[in-house]
């Protein structure tokens, strides 16, 4: 989802096998920082932006 920030705990709870709750806490700061850096880059994409392929 472009725009809002992800609820990582909710996402983790939906996984099979689940990520143990104690481990989720350790992931939150890193995932939040990565998402905060990635979302603005994503907004620069246009419909014409194709995927990378090996050339």
């Amino acid at each position, binding site marked *: 989802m472009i725009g809002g920030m992800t609820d990582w705990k909710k996402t983790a709870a939906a996984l099979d096998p689940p990520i143990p709750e104690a481990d989720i806490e350790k992931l939150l700061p890193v995932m939040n920082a*990565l998402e905060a850096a990635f979302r603005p880059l994503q907004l620069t994409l246009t419909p014409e932006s194709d995927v990378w392929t090996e050339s």
Partner: protein
Amino acid sequence: MDGIMTILEMDDALRAKKVSSLELTNETLRRIAQENSRLNAFITVVEESARARASAMDAELSHGIDRGPLHGVPFAHKDLVYTKGVRTTGGSKIFKDFVPDHDADIAVNLENAGAVMVGKTNLHEFAYGITSTNPHFGAVRNPWDTERIPGGSSGGSGAAVAAGILPFATGTDTGGSIRIPASFCGVTGLKPTFGLISKRGVMPLGWTMDHMGPITKTVRDAAVAFHAMGGPGAVPSKNADIRGLRIGLPVNYYFDTLDLEVSESVRTAVQTAAALGARIVDIKVPDIDALNVVGRMLLLVEATSVHQRHLNRRADIGADVLTLLDQGRLIRGSDYVDAQRLRRIYCGEFSKLWSEVDCIFTPTTPTAAPKIGQMTMKVGSVDEDVRLATTRLMRGINVLGIPALSIPCGFTKAGLPIGLQILGAPRTEETILRVGAAIEDATGVVGRTV
């Protein structure tokens, strides 16, 4: 400790019949026995098969069969390269008893070149990290200071070459795993252009960013090993000529946050290149932070795709790797695809630089080797996470897929090696190896052994 001969010195000595492959192999095995308790660079040593292979290579030479400069030369594979009949652990408890029934392409190529495999080197678990502090097979230690990491993930290969145990070893590089050990251990590491060296039979980490390459004592040895692995081009000549070559010096990003000693050593290498006749061109590189973010997104997802079948064995995976694999599970498929779309844009932006310059000089790592167990470090005046700081000058290069060479260019006051990274346009390994060889000849820093 006396350093072992280079590949090319061994080549000369073998053909002059001053030494046999069996003698070289026995000496290598003796050095492993002497050094491995200190460095923990090897997971597996294959004494019997190495001696048998060396004797066979001696017999071939005596019958006039010459497979080239690696004929009879001892080496080691990073322990994620499939070797038929020899266990291949990937540095993982899960694969501790895995014995492949076939060789990786790179193993076949080096065998055809006549090289003599003496063992498999230790690494960061699954090649997914930069410390080589392996929870299952023990921490690899840096020969220059055994309280410090050798870098990773190809840490055993870097430590073994730096300690003078053998002249070359194989490595893989998904976010710096050849160049980081090269930088921290004071040896040469070549990450070729993406796709140039076959990865078939090598345990993957990130399919679209994995690269195979050599870790060697010298630049010319790197060229020899690269060609034997399947790479094109020639070994740099004795007097490598770089007159008129345009060397790019980034005015942004790469020198912004560094240890002063690293910055000074790399700038000295730039001056050396200029004194040899190269033209130094100031360049502005595209947004490398953005490139690194894309690289992290791609690797998190790809590595989890590789290893998700093992996530029902959480207790058998080291804590740092498990955390990264869990992170990868949280990223959406659409975000991964968007990262690949951004990658295409950034590759296009970066490629424009090749109309201005022939290669680019940067530091390989912003600091010398940190201590084992160290989680953060001061870079300049900034506190940074060790893993993110160590990879930030090179992770993006794997996203671009361009060739990169790391060579030693100096030492800190504490006596730790400093690495220079030389980047080139796709498939210009011959150029960056020529530049590296010229710097090697001029400085005498490259090839110095602990």
